[in-house]
């Protein structure tokens, strides 16, 4: 198993030099062989993230957002009974260390200590049989040589920090005794118990009501300021990323179609899919529009990704570039010189014109 990972799972030897960025993902691929064919959940994703910054990853269900985060956590490495289900390749550099070729033991030491994760559904991410305090303390004791008493104290401190009332009492509660918002707070406490440098939040507020969502987002923001962690925020809600993210990565069909600062992606989006996402959203902050402008069709199957540009069957501008190129050639992610990447066959001028004349006025 380890041999496989060492050579890079898809066969290519892993070569690459340590980057300067805190986190750098290079050409990450996560493929799952199934009876129906190869599911290409993530198919060549690259990005960097600095400490203290937040990267937002947006996309529809099945675009590969969550698989990316699990890939960084190294949770696809070993499946049930030691069998590896996923085929992973690429490079993930964290603090100068490459994670995909690292030994499982090494990654286990990082997991929970340097990288922590907040899941969408805290009820299923927590063990129903153990008290909240025990679960938080366990995460602490795995990585620190402390006795039970100190770990419990740490758990109480953190519960207090994430805003749970009467933490010394609630530390002995079971997950089912907490409300959804409190459970999410407890999970954040668990994730932060070792002051991780990288926090991955996978749809942290999707299951919550707006008022609770606002509390949780505020909490994550505060904690990030306090600990200086890097945060990856995975969500389908453009409102949430607009508030949280410094940089934005839009995923479609397992690939990045657009990446840039939040400001750029919201104000000068360069990919038709991003336009579609912006047009689909009813806005609470604007004058009411008569109609939404949805993206036609549905997201592609990851077994059978359309040839050429994966978005071409749903793209209203698929025929703008000549020679049917959108249906035959996969567009590469290219930078426009302002650290704004997009993968589209249309020329810069064409896209600028369509955005400013056709899309932006209708939003």
């Amino acid at each position, binding site marked *: 198993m380890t041999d496989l990972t060492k050579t890079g799972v898809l066969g290519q030897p892993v070569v690459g030099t340590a980057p300067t960025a805190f986190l750098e993902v290079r050409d990450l691929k996560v493929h799952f062989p199934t009876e129906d064919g190869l599911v290409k959940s993530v198919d060549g994703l690259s990005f960097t993230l600095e400490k203290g910054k937040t990267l937002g990853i947006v996309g*529809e*269900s099945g675009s590969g957002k969550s698989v990316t985060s699990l890939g960084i956590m190294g949770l696809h490495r070993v499946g049930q009974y030691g069998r590896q289900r996923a085929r992973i390749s690429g490079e993930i550099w964290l603090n100068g260390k490459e994670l995909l070729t690292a030994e499982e033991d090494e990654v286990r030491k990082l997991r929970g200590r340097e990288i922590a994760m907040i899941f969408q559904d805290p009820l299923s991410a927590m063990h129903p049989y153990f008290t909240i305090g025990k679960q938080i303390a366990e995460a602490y004791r795995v990585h620190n040589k402390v006795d039970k008493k100190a770990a419990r104290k740490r758990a109480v401190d953190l519960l207090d920090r994430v805003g749970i*009332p009467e933490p010394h009492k609630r530390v002995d509660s079971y997950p089912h005794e907490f*409300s*959804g*918002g*409190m459970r999410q707070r407890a999970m954040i406490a668990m994730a932060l118990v070792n002051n991780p440098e990288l926090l991955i939040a996978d749809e942290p507020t999707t299951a919550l*009501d*707006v*008022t*609770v*969502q*606002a*509390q949780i*987002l*505020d909490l994550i923001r505060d904690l990030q300021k306090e600990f200086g962690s890097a945060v990856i925020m995975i969500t*389908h*809600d*453009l*409102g*949430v990323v*607009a*508030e949280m*993210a410094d940089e934005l990565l839009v995923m479609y069909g397992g690939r990045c179609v657009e990446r840039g600062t*939040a*400001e750029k992606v*919201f*104000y000068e989006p360069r990919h038709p899919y991003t336009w*579609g*996402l*912006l*047009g*689909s*959203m*009813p*806005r*609470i*902050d604007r004058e*009411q*529009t008569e*109609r*939404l*402008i*949805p*993206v*036609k069709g*549905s*997201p592609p199957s990851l077994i059978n990704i359309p040839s050429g540009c994966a978005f071409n069957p749903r793209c209203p501008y698929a025929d703008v570039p000549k020679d049917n190129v959108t249906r035959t050639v996969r567009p590469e992610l290219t930078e426009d010189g302002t650290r704004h990447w997009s993968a589209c066959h249309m020329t810069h001028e064409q896209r600028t014109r369509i955005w400013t004349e056709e899309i932006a006025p209708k939003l």
Partner: protein
Amino acid sequence: MTETPDMKKTDTAVIPRQATDSPEVLLKVSGLTKHFPITKGLLRRQAGAVKAVDGIDFDVRRGETLGIVGESGCGKSTMGRLITRLLEPTGGTVEFEGKDITHLGVAGMRPLRRDIQMIFQDPYGSLNPRHTVGTIVSAPFKLQNVMPEGGIKPEVQRLLSLVGLNPEHYNRYPHEFSGGQRQRIGIARALALNPKLVVADEPVSALDVSIQAQVVNLLDDLQQELGLTYVIIAHDLSVIRHVSDRIAVMYLGKIVELADNKALYGAPMHPYTTALMSAVPVPDPRRRGAASGRILLKGDVPSPISPPSGCRFHTRCWKATQVCTTQEPPLLALKTGHQVACHHPENAPDQVPGDQPLPGAADAVSTVSE
């Protein structure tokens, strides 16, 4: 209580209607309650009740869309099931086209099922996996013994194309469709008998953003084409704002504010509505600064088993005073067409000025500082 119906009458007369000119009331709900008993012990003695819906009044006018919004557990779904009579109300009345349907039995409701239809949230759970789309959409005709002109199959295919599905998919099973397509099947089934009122419980919340927009537009088109009246229940304030003519905000089994779309989003009166709206994340990175004025409610919604006395929101309200703990504020029209149940509304004169503020009320919320 006696003055409320009068006030409603004047409201309906003044507010211009959007889709039709007649301000005719299609559905009238007054004092509606639903308490789910909690039983205890071997003898199943009643130990208490979940007061899911606890006395609400509203009208639904023909041709309009009434949006119902609130957090989980506020009773909005229970309310939807009460007015479609999928649940038996504990108290109050529901009148449909002037006819009292509050306690009609299954047989009594059957003719009305044609007129009142429901669209459910979960497009996976609400379609029988063993039935083909054809069977699902034609079930209403069979149950009601209706023979559409030209036969059932062509009619079902017409409905499928009406909601944007391929009529040739008549013989497919639900699992062969995506979430958005399944929701369209549910809509086709609801529209089969040409209903007057469609109650949609979270019709788009299980769908992806791009698909959500397709379904919202579809509901809009169908309303224009068929003159439908909607009651749309959702927790997403942006969606509710987009689809509704009038909006009711619920909190712990009560309507706290009921107003038309512009008035509610422009000048909300109930502090809860204000807090709810300010919590919605704005998809605009340049307005991140605006989030710093955000009102953050603390804690969670209290339990509907023993809701707070007086105004139910007083435990989380920053404007709460002594009177709020003892007296329940009635739902009053403080402006034409803008009803609110609050002693100290925003954007309107204080109802109980000079009352002693509750100690700690100011700490009930925090504002985000950036």
